[in-house]
């Protein structure tokens, strides 16, 4: 435990010594704010149009039910944020293993008393903690919408858990890509590619059988994330993200063994 704790402390120190961590935190909050205010602006414009005489004299109480903060701001923000995270998370994860390898410090780690499993565990843990911190910061704006949107605290918690699990799933993919590459750029591009492919397989539906389509749908991140956004908390969705994390951790661990063999 002492060795693992020492590595976790080192990982935190190197992460927060780098401007990348602060840049990523700022970037995610900025992007989330922009997405939120853009949707809020559009929502206000729609309200204004419905309320104006030029629309045929609608009264404000004739605004259709589906034009509300929940459906016009909250959900679209989460949808856009989900896709944006696919692009943003690899910026954090690309350096985690690849930088160690490029610097040659991976050999330094491997010649201490740390096992490859502990190295992978510590790196996943610190990255996960950072991603949850990022999500907490970015969640302020969607949460603000609930003041007007009539979404309860339980629903809001489900949304935060869903957002965090989605981000952690993407982080797991990014870490696995970083573990298999010495180049941060290659790791980032691979994470983007895998993230976008895994986001939603709905596009493949028309090209495959119904059974294969159902299977592909089960592999997609989007329906899981969408369920949490709707306030549906299902054990199956937790299992999906936990499985993804474990698979990526195992792949990262296997990268160490592979390097011992391949050199």
């Amino acid at each position, binding site marked *: 435990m*002492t*060795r693992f*704790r*020492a*590595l976790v*402390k*080192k990982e935190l*120190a*190197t992460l927060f*010594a*780098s401007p990348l961590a602060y840049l990523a935190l700022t970037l995610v909050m900025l992007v989330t704010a922009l997405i939120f205010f853009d949707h809020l602006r559009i929502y206000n414009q729609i309200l204004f149009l419905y309320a104006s005489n030029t629309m045929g004299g609608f009264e404000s109480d004739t605004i259709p039910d589906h034009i509300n903060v929940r459906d016009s701001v909250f959900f679209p923000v989460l949808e856009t944020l989900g896709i944006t995270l696919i692009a943003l998370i690899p910026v954090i994860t690309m350096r985690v293993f690849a930088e160690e390898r490029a*610097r*040659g*410090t991976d*050999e*330094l*780690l*491997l*010649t*201490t*008393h*740390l*096992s490859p499993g502990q190295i992978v565990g510590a790196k996943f843990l610190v990255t996960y903690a950072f991603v949850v911190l990022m999500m907490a910061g970015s969640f302020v704006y969607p949460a603000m919408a609930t003041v007007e949107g009539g979404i309860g605290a339980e629903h809001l918690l489900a949304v935060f858990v869903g957002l965090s699990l989605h981000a952690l799933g993407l982080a797991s993919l990014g870490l696995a890509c970083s573990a298999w590459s010495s180049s941060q750029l290659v790791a980032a591009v691979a994470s983007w590619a895998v993230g976008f492919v895994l986001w939603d397989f709905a596009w493949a539906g028309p090209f495959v059988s119904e059974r294969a389509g159902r299977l592909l749908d089960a592999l997609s991140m989007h329906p899981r994330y969408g369920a949490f956004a709707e306030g549906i908390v299902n054990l199956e969705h937790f299992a999906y993200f936990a499985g993804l994390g474990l698979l990526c951790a195992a792949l990262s661990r296997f990268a160490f063994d592979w*390097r*011992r*063999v391949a*050199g």
Partner: protein
Amino acid sequence: MQADALTRRFGDTVALDGVSLTIAPGEAFGLLGANGAGKTTFIRCLTGVLLPSGGDVSVDGFSSLRSPAAVRARLGFVAETSRLYPELRVRGFLRFAAGARGLSGAAREQAVERAIERFALGEVAKRLVGHLSKGFQQRVSLAQAFVADPPLVIVDEPTSGLDPLQQEEVRSLLRSLRGERTLLLCTHDLAEARSLSDRVAVLSRGRLVAVGASAEVLGGPDPLALFRAGAAA
């Protein structure tokens, strides 16, 4: 340390070809060879970073193949270039190095202070590793390898990339460590090997071409001929 017919291939290239070698406890041993002779591959097999394609290498009776953790627990490693974390402060980095070797609390602090004193790092202990001169970085690298007092220390090209003054500084540090513990020094510098090692082995093209007392092996009229021996074979 004992290597038995240690072999390592990368595809069709044979980087190490049946190397057998024994280093006695407390000995300062020099592993010599030209660039690409197989020295670093030998060290990487010894530290468990690489799996041998054949044969085995063991430390204190523990095989790096079957018990890599037990081998790692008995060694300190100084890499060819200072492979450090430039964003960490010297004391913080040494705390990590000690913690990663299982030291905690007062024992860790004592080990760190001992290493700082031993390698004269007091004046730079609060500075970032990346802001240090190469000479100081190499001292930090040595300090992290010695921090947990391992019985075997492997030093790969310790003076590579240093200016003559820094080279002398590092050599004098290594000289002061002789006899204290087993030292495996990997170098292509003949003078360095002669002055720091009790015994040496010469690798050429992955093969062991000479082994013996350093004065004996390197005392001939043309010791460089040993470097070329494998190439001619």
